């Protein structure tokens, strides 16, 4: 079973928005040696006080099953869904990318940003802050292209994801 392939999974978790809930989730991963590749959390239902956590992790099928079983047993957790196993889903991430420079590089960075559909959220005479959203892979490509143009700072939200089709989560 150790030889089984390690695969990336995107897991959606619906939790009570209460103090300590994020610490429980993170502690579960760190305490058992699981990976967190990305994690996002925000309240999604202010009447019911539900937050939704999207966690991207990787592991063998046995490890991923363990992760989901442990998550499901946390008292404030209402639902756990493995979007990767459940079939096609939509993933998105947002990044702010600061590129500093003047002259030809500055012009080229703006041109590529335009191709990627990134918007300019702020500019000074020698810098841009681009905002780009989309799949993680698209953002990776954008960041790699911006690097030679004087990228000085990048911040990413981490992945949020939702399943396709007409069914809701809760």
């Amino acid at each position, binding site marked *: *079973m150790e030889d089984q392939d390690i695969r990336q999974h995107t897991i959606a978790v619906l939790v*009570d928005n209460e103090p*300590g809930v994020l*610490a429980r989730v993170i502690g579960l991963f760190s*305490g058992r040696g699981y990976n967190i590749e990305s994690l996002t959390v925000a309240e999604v239902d202010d009447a019911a006080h539900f937050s939704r956590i999207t966690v991207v992790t990787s592991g063998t099928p*046995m490890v991923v099953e*363990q992760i989901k*079983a442990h998550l499901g*047993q946390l*008292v404030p957790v209402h639902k756990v869904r493995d979007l990767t196993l459940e079939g096609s889903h939509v993933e998105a991430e947002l990044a702010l990318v600061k590129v500093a420079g003047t002259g030809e590089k500055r012009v080229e960075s703006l041109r590529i940003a335009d191709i990627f559909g990134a918007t300019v959220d702020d500019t000074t005479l020698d810098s841009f802050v681009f905002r780009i959203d989309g799949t993680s892979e698209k953002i990776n490509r954008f960041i790699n292209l911006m690097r030679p143009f004087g990228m000085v700072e990048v911040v990413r939200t981490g992945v949020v994801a939702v399943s396709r089709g007409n069914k809701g989560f809760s």
Partner: protein
Amino acid sequence: MTGERMTGSDVLLRALAEQGVEVIFGYPGGAVLPIYDALFKQNAIRHILVRQEGGAVHAAEGYARSTGKVGVVLVTSGPGATNAVTGLTDALMDSIPVVCLTGQVPTHLIGNDAFQEADTTGITRPCTKHNYLVKRSEDLARVVHEAFHVAQKGRPGPVVIDLPKDILQGAATYSEPPPGRHRSYNPQVKGDPSAIEQAVELMAKAKRPLFYCGGGVINSGPGASQLLTQFVHMTGFPCTLTLMGLGAVPASDKQFLGMVGMHGTYEANLAMHDCDLMINIGARFDDRVTGRLNAFSPNSVKIHVDIDPSSINKNVAVDVPIIGDAGHILEDMISIWKARQHRPDGKALDSWWKEIEAWRARDCLHYEPNDSIIKPQFALQRLFEKIKGRDHYITTEVGQHQMWAAQFLGFEKPNRWMTSGGLGTMGYGLPAAMGVQVAHPDALVIDVAGEASILMNIQEMSTLAQYRLPVKVFILNNEYMGMVRQWQELLHGGRYSESYMESLPDFVKLAEAFGATGLRASKPEEVDDLIDEMIAIDGPVIADIMVDKTENCFPMIPSGAAHNEILLGPDDKAVRPVSEEGMVLV
């Protein structure tokens, strides 16, 4: 009555009483003074004053394991809570329902490094099933009711409720337990019917089947143990139990092969290795049981019944997982077995039993008797003979004596055997015995101990004296940390680094200092008289049995070895030296 004005402490005690709590094990301090004041004014709940908070949690564990109820602990903030951490971790590993109330500094001082402040919910998050910090008095009653629900349902475990002093002191309103399902925590109890059917079909066809059952059967209640025994008889299959499961099937039953695992019997371990169908009910493929994983029961189809979904496929990949309560699933299995009029494959089963009987004939628990030195196994055999007919409960500390107790004291019923399995907590046995004796005042409660372990919570002798709890401490005194010494002998070239107990106290005088009776035996012929005297004394006793200093505990599966590489005794050379990987394992 709902809506009455009370303090937080009143609400707390009322909620505890509503949950059926009769006794609390605790130790006072500044942050919990309001609770102690409320306790003083009532008679519904009894409080047992321990001598250290660690003892309180183990006492609550002993109480819980011997009754099936939730054990309740009350400690103060800061050091009170941190002292409870070992017991909480112990209860988590062994699935014991415990509710631990911890004091906390008032809400406005939280995070201020106030006197006796500790981040109790932060510290206990990984060692509890769940924990709460009550920040609003209106949440108090609901949280207490919920804590009992969480501690008991599914795989049981410890729950901490952290109680700031202002919440306890201020006005609060009581509320009844909410009706209906919990909003998020409702573990599955009934198993998937198709998986159960599949399991029963496999059983009907099996040629070399084996029941491998554990603490999940005990935790499901005495009914589950009865059902298991019934099913074992109905099928004619052999059955082995884990350390936590002892008593689920009577030890005297012919179909019981003894305990499985590192110090389990030869026949149980070889049957695990060679079976073609393993029916695991309420055991978790612990590393003490499996040995080397890639050589674990290589040719068996595995059925795994567990209430904890995260125990399924954790260490060992199984073929038929069934999530649910052991008792419910056993009931379903039995009714399907009956309805389909299954008969086991008699011919195959006969030849399987023949093999098992040949292994049994090796008499793996045999030891060399001695006329002048007390062998620890001999002392336990004599103890067992003397207590057989009595209503008795056994607790242990951790080490060689614990394994010998598991091997030599036969458990006929569930809930009679309290030992620290998962965490291996030295110092568990004495406070646990205290909790058992509180729950069963008239029973014979014996803590089988080592001289090293007993010193870890020896202060609780004072609690025994205060409440006249007639616990018998039966020390197998070899003046070594025996299991450490054994590993040093077998794995570290006999370099007995720090495992010799120098400057041991005189346990007879120590007993007397605590108002108990001290007894000592140094020769085999003294053992019977000592045990008779110990049982006859109406009060706590420390019996100091001076045993062979160099005796090792066998059988033993060396770390990193497979079941069929089990060592039977000192002359049994390992098939191969312990591997590098094995040396790393504990």
